[in-house]
């Protein structure tokens, strides 16, 4: 009896430790964000590849269905997007992108099955999910992955490579590793430029304030790559606008509720604030609620990143200043299209130049009611037969 109690206690303790670790793990997670108007690549290509001397027009590389072997078309291809959780509106658009690409597969007669690999913000789980998915597909797998943390990008690609599938990653990876390290299975890595995003929305906000006044800064998760980059962009803009003063700065942890509490409290101390810079749109929603409660909605500028539906609507109504869309439809759909080209054998990954293995994807800055209205009527329509159509030329 005593022994059973001891075992039960150990089990309970390990479960609790696991639970606490899972909760604490949130502290190291990364947010998947959106980008700036015209995004140059976030970083120069890495991996030590020399630019190839070939004359292939990779920008216009085309998937010709007639060249895909019938055997491949009749094989069930497994498609997946590996993400943190579909409750985030931006991540939901990545899944929509996979569905758009599946329509293209229907049009060329490719057999497929698709699924969402939901990591719930747990890095270890994301790698396990990928390994299981790749093993189940036995090499007939392509996936888009948004690594929960920089450090797991290589592990995710390795998990896919073990079974011979093809992976494209987005947003997070360490600077010293890249697709070149796992050729051909780690096909590409893409990322909109968060520094540019942070800078563009800040500039739009400061211009709307006439270039002077007080601002609040609501950061995302501290230490998170996306947050750091966006804040770096904000600081660049602040250097250009010396009459803008940051009177309060803290983290809202990407959370609407926490941003509301921050802004509500600060407004008591600084009722004359002219603008609020937020690192994402979830926090813009909280800031706008606080402004509304104080009767200041529409009078104080607010900006964020992600192009959440409610924020775009607020920009259209004049209640918010700017946001940026990284176009999750495009990221999800085109990453799978490039991986598909590799799986069919039409794209020789080894021959692909470094600048086509790591590149920036386009973003849209929404900084006026007209731009917001245009975005609201946006219907994604892509030509997946030209998969590098998603690349921003350097």
């Amino acid at each position, binding site marked *: 009896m005593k022994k059973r109690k001891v075992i039960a206690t150990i089990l*309970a303790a390990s*479960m609790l430790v696991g*639970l606490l670790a899972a*909760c604490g793990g949130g502290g190291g997670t990364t947010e998947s964000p959106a980008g700036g108007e015209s995004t140059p690549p976030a970083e120069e290509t890495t991996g030590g590849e020399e630019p190839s001397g070939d004359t292939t027009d990779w920008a216009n590389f085309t998937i010709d269905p007639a060249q895909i072997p019938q055997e491949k078309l009749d094989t069930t291809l497994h498609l997946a997007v590996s993400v943190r*959780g*579909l*409750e*985030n*509106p931006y*991540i*939901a*658009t990545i*899944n929509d992108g996979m569905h758009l690409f599946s329509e293209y597969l229907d049009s060329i007669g490719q057999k497929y099955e698709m699924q969402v690999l939901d990591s719930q913000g747990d890095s270890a789980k994301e790698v396990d999910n990928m390994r299981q998915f790749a093993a189940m597909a036995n090499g007939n797998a392509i996936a888009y992955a948004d690594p929960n943390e920089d450090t797991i990008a290589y592990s995710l690609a390795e998990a896919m490579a073990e079974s011979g599938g093809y992976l494209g990653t987005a947003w997070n990876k360490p600077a010293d590793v890249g697709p070149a390290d796992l050729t051909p299975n780690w096909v590409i890595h893409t990322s909109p430029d968060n520094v540019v995003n942070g800078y563009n929305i800040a500039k739009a906000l400061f211009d709307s304030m006439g270039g002077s006044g007080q601002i609040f800064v609501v*950061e995302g998760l*501290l230490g998170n790559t996306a947050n750091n980059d966006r804040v770096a962009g904000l600081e660049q803009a602040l250097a250009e606008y010396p009459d803008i003063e940051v009177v*309060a*700065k*803290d*983290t809202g942890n990407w*959370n*609407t*509720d926490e941003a*509301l*509490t*921050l802004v*509500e*409290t*600060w407004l*008591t*101390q600084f009722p004359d604030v002219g603008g609020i810079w937020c690192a994402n749109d*979830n926090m813009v*929603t*909280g800031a706008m*609620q606080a402004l*509304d*409660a104080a*009767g200041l909605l529409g009078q104080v500028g607010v900006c964020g990143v992600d192009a*959440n*539906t*409610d924020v775009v*609507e607020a920009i259209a109504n004049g209640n918010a200043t700017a946001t940026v869309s990284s176009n999750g439809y495009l990221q999800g759909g085109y990453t799978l299209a490039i991986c598909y080209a590799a799986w069919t054998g039409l794209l020789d990954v080894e021959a692909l130049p470094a600048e086509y293995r790591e590149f920036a994807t386009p973003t849209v800055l929404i900084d006026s009611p007209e731009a917001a209205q245009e975005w609201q009527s946006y219907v994604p329509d892509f030509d997946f037969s030209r998969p590098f159509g998603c690349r921003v030329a350097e």
Partner: protein
Amino acid sequence: MMKLNPSATLTEEFAERIRSENRSNRMMKLAPVLVLVAMLIVFLVTCGPSFLGPQNLVNILNQMALPLVVALGLTFVIMLGSIDLSIDGSVGMAGSLFACFVLNTEFSYNFGFFSVVIAVGVSMLCGLVIGLCHVYLKIPSFMASFAFMYICKGIGMVSYQGHPPTIKDPLITALPTTTFLFIPFITWVAIIMFVLCFFIQEYTAFGRHIYAVGTNESIPRSVGVSVEKVKIGVFTLAGFLFGVAGVIGAIRLGQGQIAIGDDKMFPAQAAVVVGGTSLAGGKGGVVNTIVGVLIMTVLDNGLLTLHVDPNIRTGVQGIIILVAVILTSARGAKVISK
């Protein structure tokens, strides 16, 4: 020769011990209030008089509404000596369901007030099932409720499928700015919930049974009280209160999303313990909880007002909570959660 009366000495000793225990109990009861007063004085001195100005008082009242309702539900569970880990899920789920069923940007339903009934009802049902699993399937409460945290999050995620509904009902969008006697509407809802819980605790047989079950299950069982019914009732009541908290959260944010419930469980637990309710069960109550919630809210608000560097704020907050727990909580040998 005079003979000593050993029984008289024993009686005196016993009476002295009781008096000393009563003194220490009174001190323990007062400790949370003293901590709250000390905290208010410190922040008043460091932040200036605006800290207790009318505008910041309204902020504190707004910020304490949701945590108070959550903590009230958890208080009864902790008084049983059990724990409920479903909070993050059930609060987020109720907020999401409520926003989905009122007039909103994403869906065409508009059930008006009935959406509150749906949201709170589903949360209450989840509480009931947690209770049933705990009592009849003999699953520890932390395990059953932990599973329900995920189930509720799942229901919440399915309800809006990545597109959080923004509330458009003009009556509801006006509520965050509505006040009565200078107190915000959502705080009134929390106060009403507090009065309801106080009434249940003090003036109903169910309330007394909660204390009895938390102290020693065999005693109420021996006098014919259904311990099972009491436990199931408590988890259902907690589900009801978590549902109300979710609706408050959605009203405050103007949007339904499961993140409304994120990170609500541990602060609520800390508030209950800082207030003086014992994790071992049988001690404390909702009055302690309201003081505990005030301590946690004032601490959060004060540190924000002071503009403490965010990199160290969380750590500072943790240290202050630890000190508050040391000063206020009833500690004993029995600290196992049933």
